[in-house]
């Protein structure tokens, strides 16, 4: 392909076209920046589903603005025929693909994330052992804050190959589990009913959701798991603290002895 043919694919770039491209770029940037400022502020004043909806709008707006700006700008630069489009975008795609493979792959995964919704702002997710709340979904990476207030940037690229665990999946329901390890000599039904009441009387508990207690006999005693949902996912750690503190007091008053686990038995048990 000679130079004349290549130049023939493009339109003549006049100053008016340059200004139009500049204006489109500026307006798109303004809209995205405004949405990134206004929507988190609004979400800070809301709770539950409304908060999560406001947060979920941020990446959606950005992708929509990006698509509109792209569709607007490309015909200004390229002669809009199928042949031209395929030639230029194909060549550009090949070049970018080789040079910025991971970056582009992350951006593509970011687009897929907006459509598939494996995580949204406000969700509590775990990726490769790191757990936290999604604060921001960028073009290339997702920004997460751990319970210890550490910001973690995870490239969207992980979406292709890694398991993403989402604890609340866009809704306000997030199950919390409080563990109790008891000496085997006790009435399991009494303990089960008591722990259900511990859940029911927590001010954090979401009463529209089930409260479940499961027990498993272990060589060292009985392992109880009290499962319930807080009203707001952000309350999960206070909720578990409340369940543990009051649960311990009630069990001690019953009275039930707590199991004394040796270090080899204290290893993390699998969920059930």
């Amino acid at each position, binding site marked *: 392909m000679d130079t004349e043919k290549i130049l023939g694919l493009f339109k003549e770039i006049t100053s008016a076209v340059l200004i139009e491209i500049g204006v489109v770029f500026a307006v798109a940037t303004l809209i995205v920046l405004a949405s990134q400022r206004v929507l988190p502020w609004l979400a800070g004043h809301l709770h*539950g589903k409304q908060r999560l909806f406001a947060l979920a709008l941020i990446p959606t707006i950005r992708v929509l603005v990006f698509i509109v700006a792209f569709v607007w700008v490309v015909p200004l630069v390229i002669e809009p025929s199928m042949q031209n489009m395929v030639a230029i975008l194909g060549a550009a795609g090949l070049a970018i693909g080789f040079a910025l493979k991971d970056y582009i792959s992350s951006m593509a995964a970011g687009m897929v994330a907006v459509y598939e919704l494996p995580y949204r702002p406000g969700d509590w997710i775990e990726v490769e052992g790191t757990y936290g709340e999604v604060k921001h979904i960028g073009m290339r990476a997702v920004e997460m804050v751990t319970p210890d207030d550490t910001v973690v940037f995870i490239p969207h690229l992980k979406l292709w190959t890694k398991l993403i665990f989402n604890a609340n999946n866009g809704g306000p329901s997030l199950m919390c589990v409080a563990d109790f390890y008891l000496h085997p000599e006790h009435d399991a039904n009494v303990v089960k009913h008591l722990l259900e009441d511990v859940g*029911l009387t927590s*001010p954090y508990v979401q*009463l529209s959701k089930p409260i479940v207690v499961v027990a498993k006999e272990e060589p060292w005693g009985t392992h109880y798991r009290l499962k319930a949902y807080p009203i*707001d996912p952000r309350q999960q750690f206070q909720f578990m603290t409340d369940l543990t*503190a009051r649960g311990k007091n009630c069990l001690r008053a019953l009275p039930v002895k707590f199991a004394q686990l040796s270090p080899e038995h204290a290893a993390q048990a699998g969920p059930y």
Partner: protein
Amino acid sequence: MAESNHWQLIPLDTFERPSAPATTAIQQAWSQLRKLFIAEEDDDVNPDEQDFPHYREFDLAPAVAAIDTCWDADEPPSVRFVISAPFSGSGAIFREWAKQNGYQQLEPPSLEQLGQADTDAWWQQQASERWLIDEFSSFWLRTTEHMQFMRALLPRLLRGELGTGVVVIDSWTFAFLHRAWPLSLPHCYCFAAATPELLKDSGVIASDKRLRNLAAKARGNLGVALALWAVEQDEERSLPRLPSEADDSTAFILYSLLLHHGLKGEYLQMVLPLMAANQLDVQLLRLQQNGIIDLDENKVWRINVYAYPDVREFLAARGFWLDGF
């Protein structure tokens, strides 16, 4: 009398809240939006502003007559439940009805009896053939130790072991009961939502449209409607607003007060052990300064009637388990 009486006692499942006219709905949405944007501007609380006009008490006689119209006096079931929204006055109405019909008003159990779920000791002190429990909210506390009494008492009431009676249950307690004791209670009644005619009878003089708006704003609750009307009539007053510092702890306190129809400080501490005593005091005093709650002569903290709509909205926005009214 029967034709002109706008009070109606109805089965609970037929209750309908008055719908707000479109303009009122838009006004409410606008007011919520404004609250969102001006929430940061907290009022400097002026203690004088707590002096709200005392809203006019309504006449109990037509409400009592409505009970007799609805219920067959000859063959009453063993127990009937009346679900009462806060400030709707159902407790006072049924106390009056009980006096006229020879029903004995039962005293709530002591804290010790609640803890031991000792329904026998409580009943034997005051056994009677016909009785009224005018405030079922006093028959439990939201702690693991103080819910067993309620669970022991309800089956006895339903089996007819304690004779014939009427139980007035606060709507917030009733909503919680659905979760804590998931059996549908039979013979549940409530007063129908306030209509413009009932508001007129209760002394609110305004156009039909304004009365409909008022009834919708108060969610059909006559007591709340009268309070809102009293504030509307006084240009120098405005409804109390929750402090901008209101957080999860504030919500827990307000929810607990609604759940138990008011609580003493020490009981509130039992229900919310996660809050330190000084933290609880700060929250209570701040809410009192903002006119959200009051401390009555029995040292019981209660939600102020003027603040009730705002408190309900606040809890609804945070996803709390609400009453059905």
